[in-house]
């Protein structure tokens, strides 16, 4: 048997070595140095995991439009999907992405601070936001725990699923949503503009958090497999789960944050690969009506302008009070000070809840 193994399998494995060897060397042909636009340009997109299906469709649609307008030229796309923050770190570590589709602005800032993004993305069209949604509650059929607003999440014994903000960029959206709703005086029993009250709400919620998964997606999967009474998640993710046949029930809180996800050109890489112009045109395309319709039908997202986003869509209910992170002073302030800073509302509340 071993002789058989060595004589039969051995050569096959040797062949594999040869094949993989050539595969490796062909992959090392990535362009660098002086910029001469390739006849067969290759654009690399690193995206967070949720818009997987949407980008598939957006790319193929854009590719065929480009082909028609550019003498049959095919722009090849290399795509990578993963956690938003993980992708940001990979780009900083040298993953040569020309375009970065992030789930939240602070992740883009990380890449910017590493010197890879030099364009003024925060002041570009729609502030570079290409997808929008809101933070909602995923509850069991019939909503047996009567969860309608943020204060309902503090009822004793409730089991809440939300991802870990230390690991999941998206988890920060959930916390900002609860914080903002309290600060705007839209949560019964919590005074408007009162930081201590907002902290109390977060503490009450996090006392009930039983599972902190590593991503929003894991939270949802966990909930669907029967864990917990409520999962805090994105409305578009929930709509996707429902479209796939889940029995999830979406509850839109009266006041919640507008989730805004930016997609930007990573200038340093795009220039090095000599695809800066193509990459920019693709990102611009994402802001068109056609692309937005694809986002809405494939990824169940809301329109970009906040006033528009608050309205009901084919898949999602209307929101009474939809606010943005800018209404709360912007991400910088939320991350470094008011919510996630050393003395921020969440930092304090989390210590109190788990201490």
């Amino acid at each position, binding site marked *: 048997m071993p002789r058989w193994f060595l004589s039969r399998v051995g050569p096959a*494995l040797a062949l594999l070595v040869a094949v993989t060897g050539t*595969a490796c060397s062909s*992959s090392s042909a990535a362009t660098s140095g002086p910029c001469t636009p390739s006849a067969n340009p290759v654009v690399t997109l690193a995206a967070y995991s949720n818009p997987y299906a949407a980008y598939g469709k957006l790319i193929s649609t854009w590719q065929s439009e480009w082909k028609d307008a550019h003498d049959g030229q095919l722009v090849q796309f290399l795509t*990578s*999907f993963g956690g938003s923050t993980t992708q940001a770190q*990979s780009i900083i*570590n040298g993953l040569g992405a020309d375009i970065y589709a992030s789930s939240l602005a602070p992740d883009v800032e990380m890449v910017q601070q590493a010197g890879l993004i030099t364009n003024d993305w925060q002041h570009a069209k729609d502030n570079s936001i290409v997808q929008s949604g809101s933070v909602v509650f995923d509850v069991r059929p019939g909503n047996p725990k009567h969860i309608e607003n943020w204060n309902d999440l503090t009822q004793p014994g409730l089991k809440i699923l939300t991802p870990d903000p230390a690991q999941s960029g998206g988890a920060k959206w959930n916390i900002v949503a609860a914080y903002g709703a309290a600060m705007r005086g839209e949560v019964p029993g919590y005074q408007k503009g009162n930081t201590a009250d907002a902290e109390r709400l977060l503490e009450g919620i996090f006392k009930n958090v039983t599972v902190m998964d590593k991503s929003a997606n894991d939270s949802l999967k966990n909930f669907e497999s029967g864990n917990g009474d409520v999962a805090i998640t994105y409305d578009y993710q*929930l709509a996707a789960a429902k479209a796939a046949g889940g029995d999830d029930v979406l509850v839109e809180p009266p006041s919640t944050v507008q989730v805004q996800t930016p997609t930007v050109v990573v200038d340093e890489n795009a220039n090095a690969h000599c695809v800066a112009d193509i990459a920019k045109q693709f990102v611009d395309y994402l802001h068109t009506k056609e692309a937005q319709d694809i986002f809405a039908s494939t990824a169940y997202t809301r329109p970009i302008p906040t006033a528009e986003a608050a309205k009901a869509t084919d898949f999602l209910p209307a929101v009474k009070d939809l606010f943005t992170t800018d209404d709360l002073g912007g991400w910088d302030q939320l991350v470094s000070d008011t919510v996630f800073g050393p003395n921020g509302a969440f930092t304090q509340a989390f210590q109190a809840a788990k201490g």
Partner: protein
Amino acid sequence: MAEIVAIEHPARRPEGRARPPAGAALRRWSLRGAAFVYLGLFIILPVGVLLQHGFGAGFANLRDALRTPGGSAAIRLTLEMAALTAIINGIFGTLLAYVLVRMRFPGRDLLTTVVDLPFAVPTLVAGVMLVALYGPNSTVGGWFEAHGIHIIFAPLGILLALLFVTLPLVVRSVQPVLLELDPAEEEAARVLGAGRWTTFRRVMFPALRPAIAAGCLLAFARALGEYGAIVIVSGNIINKTLTAPVFITELLQPSAYVRTGGPDAAAAVSAVLFGLAFVLVLITEKLVHTERS
């Protein structure tokens, strides 16, 4: 092929429980029963569920998964990388085992312990380490990059991660057999004029072959399923560096459900990987068994 073998392996329950004879037999049966129940609960049952989800509707789920962009390329890449891992670690694992068993040098005990380190390090950490060492922006990785060799976010990085994770498997499989081999045989060969290499090839290798093959196959099977280290080092570029385990987790995205079978497609791909691993373990056992009997 792989799936069929896997399907043909139903949960076997202990038979003949009726007519318990003496106390000794009863004890023997309860021991056997405990083993079967344990195996059934923790291995056979989950695998059964996986197969039921993946292939409950025939091959439609697998077809869906393979039609998803990057699906078949991911499986191919995973097989190639696992095969390379098995070969390279087969060679160097054996070498390491030989050095550790047959040679005397200071720090040998320490080195023996170091071999086990990959088992104790979370594989995700292994990935982070490799990126820090060989990433395009690190000193070492930058040098390679300047010379046109891409390591991290390229297939080579995946290979390095897999080599790290599976190294102990070959060493630990060869080492005990080597320890049992009588050094007198080697000495005899040396005395009769054989060089070191000839001694290894003609005297030791035939005896070690089943253990090396077993270690290689274990490494191959382990490499098929590795996720943690790879997800960090590969960059997960579809059709280029996306491996099957990472592809499976992407299939689990709710946004992917609509286009593919979602969890069921993921189960189908997992079952294919599992089936391959299963067949390999069977071959390994056969190899070891034939050689010993």
